[in-house]
């Protein structure tokens, strides 16, 4: 592959993407596209963004050689891109800083967002506090139970958290409610969508804001070794950390790109979140993308131990990259992810988020198929503090 120029001007990645939203939102979506194009080419906007990413978020994040993990895997060298060391503990803030600056630039004073695990909600509430924006976060009732600490963090930061009791009461339904809220408050409110999903320009814009991960990785690895790593592995829910990691490497055909979905209890059960592995194309939340759905086109509930991967769709660009075969998509079960999480704690003293543990788990498998002269970079997208209660409950259950 030499040149890659996606999406087209209407936001299509091949057949995927687009702007499948109610007419009430179209003007806002078109204006956002225009505002983002202007901001992208505006040096002062880029300077503000770079400043906040460095001074506030704490970039750049280290590219850490996990020597003990490498010895354990007994194969390729494993490097961890430490997005868990960002302010608020995950990659999510790369995007919320960018979008909040854009909202200010557009004169919007109010922000709405959805959240699953709560990481995007916390990252949104954080920048809203910083930039003095009013903030409403929609979160599924189930997720609120699973992530109580994050709910309190958002409230502490001044956000209003609204419990969503419709549907499966998880991320998908929080997206529905955030969209309904946006439809009703579109004139003064910007929607900070948390992943590479939704109507154009969101998938492109979120990818661009997150691509700081891949750009830094490329620079850091090249400074040390004068070349690119052989493989890059990242977990996929909606797909933002992986898209940000992969995008700067898409044209480098020597780099193997592997996205890891959540297999939940197993992809041959009904309880998983492997949209690319088991889903088919359809329209949800503003875009055409791979979806878990029944034969009649009703969206099915996803399952993963990790709230951040618990979504029945995957961004349109991933859908496209799967079809053209540029990215390989694999899946990891709840128990494989838990094992990898424990291993990383013991071997490296790093507690990863359950989401990121899926990428670590696949990296351990994949390293063994590669030579010791080769390298894998894993996107360690978030830290696991938010998950310790889930992990504890799960370990107790396993003992009983």
């Amino acid at each position, binding site marked *: 592959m030499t040149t890659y120029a996606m999406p087209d001007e209407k936001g299509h990645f091949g057949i995927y993407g687009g*702007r*499948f939203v109610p007419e009430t939102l179209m003007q806002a979506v078109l204006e956002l596209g225009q505002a983002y194009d202007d901001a992208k080419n505006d040096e002062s906007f880029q300077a503000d963004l770079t400043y906040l990413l460095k001074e506030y978020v704490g970039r750049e994040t280290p590219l850490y050689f996990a020597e003990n993990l490498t010895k354990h895997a007994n194969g390729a060298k494993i490097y961890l891109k430490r997005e868990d060391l960002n302010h608020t503990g995950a990659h999510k803030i790369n995007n919320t800083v960018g979008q909040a600056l854009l909202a200010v630039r557009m004169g919007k004073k109010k922000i709405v967002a959805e959240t699953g695990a709560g990481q995007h909600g916390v990252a949104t509430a954080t920048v809203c506090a910083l930039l003095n924006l009013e903030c409403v976060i929609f979160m599924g009732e189930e997720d609120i139970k699973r992530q109580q600490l994050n709910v309190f963090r958002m409230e502490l930061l001044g956000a209003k958290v609204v419990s969503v009791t419709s549907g499966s009461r998880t991320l998908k339904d929080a997206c529905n409610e955030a969209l309904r809220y946006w439809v*009703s408050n579109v*004139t003064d409110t910007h929607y900070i969508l948390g992943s590479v999903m939704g109507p154009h320009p969101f998938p492109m814009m979120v990818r661009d804001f997150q691509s700081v991960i891949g750009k830094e990785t490329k620079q850091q690895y090249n400074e040390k070794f004068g070349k690119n790593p052989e493989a890059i592995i990242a977990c996929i829910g909606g797909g933002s950390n992986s898209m940000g990691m992969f995008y700067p490497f898409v044209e480098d055909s020597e780099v193997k790109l592997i996205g890891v979905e959540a297999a939940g209890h197993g992809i041959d059960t009904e309880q998983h979140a492997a949209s690319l592995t088991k889903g088919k194309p359809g329209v949800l939340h503003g875009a055409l993308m791979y979806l878990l759905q029944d034969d009649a086109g009703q*969206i099915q509930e996803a399952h993963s131990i990790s709230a951040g991967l618990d979504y029945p769709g995957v961004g349109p660009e991933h859908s496209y990259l799967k079809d053209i075969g540029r990215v390989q998509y694999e899946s990891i079960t709840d128990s494989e992810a838990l094992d990898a999480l424990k291993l990383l704690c013991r071997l490296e003293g790093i507690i990863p988020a359950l989401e990121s543990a899926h990428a670590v788990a696949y990296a351990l498998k994949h390293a063994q198929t590669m030579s010791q002269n080769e390298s894998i970079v894993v996107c360690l997208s978030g830290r696991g503090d938010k998950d310790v209660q889930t992990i504890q409950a799960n370990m107790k259950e396993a003992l009983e």
Partner: protein
Amino acid sequence: MNRIEKAFHSLKEKNGKAFVPYLMAGDGGLDQLLEQLIFLESCGATAIEIGIPFSDPVADGPAIQEAGIRSLQLGTTLKGVLSAIQTIRPIVSTPLILMTYMNPIYAYGIGSFIHDAVKAGIDGCIIPDLPIEEEELIASHLQDANIELIRLVTLTSPIERIEEIAKKGRGFLYAVTVTGITGARTEFNTSVAEYLKNIKSVSPIPVLAGFGISTPEQVVELGSYCDGVVVGSKIVQFFHEKKLNEIEHLIAASKTADVS
């Protein structure tokens, strides 16, 4: 001439106002559909919107969301609805318009969907998550099949865009009267009258107001600024509560609307 065009043509001759009720297919069981359609026809509905339930209806408020859940729990599918309509079509002469989100159609397969919709005698389609930017996916296929794609315009659409949409428009133009989702409103923004008059002035096809309309007074008032109204959530609620006389009152109000 398509049945929708005919209906508006004869309405114009009588100087009447349109009333288009919406019902959720399969709410209370798909076996109720025939009776519901005959009832709405007997009340004088100009056309009838048949809603297809969807798991994630982002343009809809609680009344239609809940009706959709009830219907899905009874196993309603787009395929099942089309086959039910095909059976009862010879008995009902009112124009029938499907209102469905894009994904059930996409999962059906656009070609198969249109084939079965023609067989069922469907006259129009409203797809609330399909703006004109994406409509090439299906618009020309519908047109070839003589099924009208009813477009929506909203309070947030600039007048140039409304003109563009109106020009593409088929059947009637659906003017959304609230900045928000479906569901009863106690009052409307004062700018709605002007908005509807502006749309009327640029639209070559009839303009119907919809979203939030729930009382006979609103039917009369909003109808007076355009060619009639669409009522959804309230009809769905009255069917669910079996208050058929309330539905009669709402539709009757459109017959008394001031014709200007």
